[in-house]
């Protein structure tokens, strides 16, 4: 699978997760690499749920400290690919 299609697949998976679990209504029209973590309704607490769901759905375990400094969805996708997604 190419990097681009892999990236699209992961973004789709993340959207599916957020559609299920997010407590805020993200801006789906502009959902993509440039979406900020804040715009997705995630903070230092709710991102823990995202990591939980990522492990369930994508099978990649990320430590909370690894994502603390992430500000965009693109950075999260890169981190997931780096960790074997």
């Amino acid at each position, binding site marked *: 699978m190419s990097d681009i299609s892999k990236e699209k697949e992961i973004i789709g998976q993340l959207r599916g997760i957020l559609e299920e679990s997010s*407590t*805020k209504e993200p801006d789906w029209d502009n959902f993509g690499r440039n979406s900020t973590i804040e715009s997705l*309704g995630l903070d230092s*607490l709710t991102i*823990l*749920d995202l990591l*939980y769901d990522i492990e*369930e759905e994508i099978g990649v375990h990320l430590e909370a400290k690894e994502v603390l400094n992430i500000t965009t969805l693109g950075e999260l996708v890169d981190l997931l690919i780096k960790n074997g997604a």
Partner: protein
Amino acid sequence: MNNETSQRTGSARHRVVVTGIGIASPLGVDEKIVWKNLIEGKTGIGPIRAIDTSALKVRNGAEVPEGLAEARLKSMGRRPSDRALDLAVVSAQDALLNAKLISQEQESVPQDVSVIYGTGVGSAESHYKSMQAMFEKGPQRARPTAVPRCMYNAISAGISLQFNLTGANHMVVSACTSATNAIGTAYRMVRDGYAQTALTGGSDGFFDPFFYPVWNNIGVLSKIEDPIEACRPFAADREGTILGEGAGTLILETLESARSRGVPIRGEVLGYGESSDATHLTNPSSEGQAKAMRMALNEAGVSPQDIGHINAHGTATHGNDACESKSIHSVFGDAAADVPVVANKSYFGHTLGASGALECISAFLALEHGISPPNLNIENPDPECRINMVGLEPVPIDSRPVMKNSFGFGGGNGVLVLGPSE
């Protein structure tokens, strides 16, 4: 009052008025629609949609009409999270808008507001989902945010976070008396100068595959299959209560504050009484109930003869209604035969920790309009109760104070005396 202190302001007692009302109920999420349904005698009780009830003895409940709360949450940029919290936030937004503390352009409240809120069950949906995940995947795979989501004060905290309310913030948990206890507590805080403005009320949402079947088993739900007929407070042929979900929110503030802000006054809280039966976990005691009623009357400075009508707890179970009518007789004496009594649970169902709030709102709307909604299913009033139940048609009422009763499992009793705007 500035935003940096919630310390008591002086020693004088303040008059406490209601400047905002918000409701998310089985009769709707707009107070005008709720009032229309009350006056037209339309119940919010129906077959339960949220869960599969095919194996249960009782299948009726009062649910907030599908999609209404969800649409309101979406307009706030929120997604459904926990039913009790969601309904509380929706009703809180309406109450704050109604009190002109927020507007469509200004979503953050510019002054200290304390949140004193009630719930009977708390974050039932979050508890159920967390337990479900634990049983399916094991405790090591429990969702991290289960801890804050399952807190009782997730509801008051959620309201505070949504609207930036920076005063006191806590929950009152006392089963079916929760909202009335919360309103009474908030009233005293405002009256005594510990808060200038308080957002109060109650919320419960519990139609999940654990909580509702358990209530089926405790034997107090009506087995009458027709949802319109099922809940019959103070009727001779009553067979039990029907559960409901909902949230009601009121904004209480000092009369001085309301006048200085120039906002309409919807009513006034005149007095509050509370007591504990200390006799049985689930069976009520008329002594404890009467004690709370007398305390509320005394605090309001009124006699039983001054009460224009009673908004009863009226669960429609045999024991509760018989006990409440006995308590009314104990306090009102001969006047008990005359004072009109209305019981709203045939409309909203028994919304447990929200019931006191929804029924207070109904009482304030009745005072505003000078009309009492009819009692549903009261074709055969129980002669043993010997109280003056409003009949099947709305009736005019005067502007004298209303007594609002709430009694709960655990033996807690809460009674409010409510007055008109002036």
